[in-house]
């Protein structure tokens, strides 16, 4: 147990180092983008103003407010102090909203969309893959090519296909937004119904892709496990097939759990694109708008949240893994 604890402290240390570097990059990279975001805001506010001194005054006021006139290191120190207090500052592009406010509005949309989608895709994919390995024959022959085909779709491609087929042609679902744009968010039945309807296309376009990838992985793992020596031995000791299948699937699942951690990582990458395609009010759309508006604080905070989520998911998986696979635990405790 002592070795095990040491392993986790060590791991935690590494996660901390990763976090520090990610934090630094999150701060620096957006600020290396060419262009002056304050100028863009001022241009927006100063529309129609002809007094150049006035424009200059507004500009300086904003520069002072956002602190962009200070050297980068000083900005970083201020940023660090503020973040420690949970203050991410003002959003440049959506001023006067604060970053925390913007993120609070979008983060839950993303989590509510992506997390269930990834879990559902993972569960269905693994079940189908395991069945394909066990049943073989026709089921396998149909499922496999289909999975390979589907898993190689980029998320935005799938999103566009869904939009064209179910949104534009069949008109089953609305093509954009998280709820009807004539509604105000509330706990009314009408609003919830609208959310559910808007949820379907982004959800399934992510699920379908996840199913493909997971099914392929699970199938090959399960085939490998089904031919393992312990399966033969268990059979010859008279253990019934249903029980052996239980052994096999548990063992074949183990690498798939890593797959799950990775998909939580890709929640950031590909799947956010699907959000943008559907103009879903989640982190993806927010991030896109932040990048277009050179909104440093918002970019930094969004990517920071994503980083923390990925690190956290990986850390949880790492701990879980030791508990479900004694082989990993033995190595970890070494």
């Amino acid at each position, binding site marked *: 147990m002592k070795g095990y604890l040491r392993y986790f402290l060590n791991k935690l240390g590494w996660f901390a180092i990763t976090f520090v570097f990610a934090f630094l990059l999150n701060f620096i990279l957006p600020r290396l983008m060419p262009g002056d975001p304050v100028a863009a805001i001022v241009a927006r506010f100063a529309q129609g103003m002809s007094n150049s001194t006035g424009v200059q005054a507004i500009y300086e006021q904003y520069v002072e407010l956002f602190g962009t006139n200070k050297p980068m290191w000083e900005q970083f120190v201020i940023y660090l102090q503020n973040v420690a207090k949970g203050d991410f500052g003002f959003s440049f592009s959506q001023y006067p909203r604060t970053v925390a406010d913007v993120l609070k509005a979008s983060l839950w949309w993303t989590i509510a969309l992506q997390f269930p989608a990834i879990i559902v895709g993972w569960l269905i994919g693994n079940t189908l893959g395991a069945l394909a390995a066990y049943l073989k024959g026709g089921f396998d022959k149909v499922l496999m090519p289909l999975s390979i085909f589907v898993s190689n779709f980029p998320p935005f491609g799938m999103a566009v296909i869904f939009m064209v087929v179910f949104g534009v042609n069949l008109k089953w679902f609305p093509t954009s937004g998280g709820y009807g744009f004539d509604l105000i968010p509330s706990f009314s039945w009408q609003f919830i119904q609208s959310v559910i309807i808007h949820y379907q296309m982004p959800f399934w376009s992510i699920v379908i892709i996840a199913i493909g990838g997971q099914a392929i992985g699970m199938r090959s793992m399960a085939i490998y496990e089904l031919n393992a020596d312990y399966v033969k031995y268990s*059979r*010859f*000791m008279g253990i*019934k097939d249903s029980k052996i299948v239980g052994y096999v699937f548990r063992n074949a699942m183990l690498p798939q759990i890593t797959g799950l951690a990775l998909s939580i990582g890709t929640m950031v990458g590909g799947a956010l694109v699907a959000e943008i395609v559907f103009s879903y009010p989640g982190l993806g759309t927010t991030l896109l708008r932040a990048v277009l508006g050179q909104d440093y604080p918002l970019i930094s905070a969004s990517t920071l949240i994503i980083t923390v989520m990925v690190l956290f998911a990986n850390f949880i998986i790492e701990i879980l893994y030791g508990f479900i696979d004694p082989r990993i635990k033995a190595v970890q405790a070494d």
Partner: protein
Amino acid sequence: MANTMLEVKELSTKYITRFREDVYAVDRVSLAVKEGRSLGIAGESGCGKSTLALSLMGYYFPPLHYTSGEIIINGKNISGMKPDDVRKSILGREIAYIPQAAMNALNPTRKIIHFIEDVIMEHEVYATKKDIYERAKKLFETLGLPAEVLQKYPVELSGGMKQRTVIAISVLLLPKVLIADEPSSALDVTSQKMVIKMLRHLMEAGMISSMIFITHELPLLYNVVDDIMVMYAGQIVETGASREMVFDPIHPYSKGLMGSIIVPEQGLRDVKLTAIPGVPPNLKKPPAGCRFAERCRFVRPECLVTNVSLRQAGDGRAYRCILPEAELREAYAREEHKK
């Protein structure tokens, strides 16, 4: 007169490959093992030893398929039984198996005791976990294995320990026949000795009534078993008491097999190491005549067309060759003289 624990009559099994080809891996094998006796099966890789071991269990799953013949275990003919009945009442209880790769024979994510619970509960519906633990503990202690092993995962055991654990699990239900498929070939010499000692102990203590030991290491067989059977291309080519089989083989293949092994035993040390040229026949299309004909030094034209059956050669020995024993012995003597 001791009871016959295992009797096999003309058993044939085949593999059906992915491309729907039949591979006739075991061809009309007959054998009998009496109570308190052990039989060794020897032969080169791919001769059908392991397939025979699997076939003897009477429980077939793809790619192995039963073709014909009978298996009688302790008076029960299991050949006509339903697979599920074989599984419940025969496997583990009447006949048990120690796999070739005992290293990987245990589910890596299941504690030893939990696997033992699974095995026993499959056969004894009313067994409680507490009883099972007590039984397992007693058995492990009798066999010189620490009881702590029960609470461990396979990964926490050394290779030799894993092997002995598998053996202990195999004999949990005191089977009449134990089939050990190269149980020691992946171990170092010390662990090998412990495994052999354990198997002998099982016989002496009456935990198993008879044993079949499969190996390609003949000297090992000679030390462990009473009788030896040599297999070639899915058939028995010679069978007899172990001492005679090792020191005085009749069949040209057995002779070659003994000569192709480095043996530290007294009396065999002087035998010159020779390889048998050629390769075994393709069992997808077994030859019509003698299966060893292509590699035999004494081959005659009729060997290639005549289906040779086993012929008796006194004191319970039998060999599969068209040449009479005397003629073969004469030929060996001539070869010896030439050297």
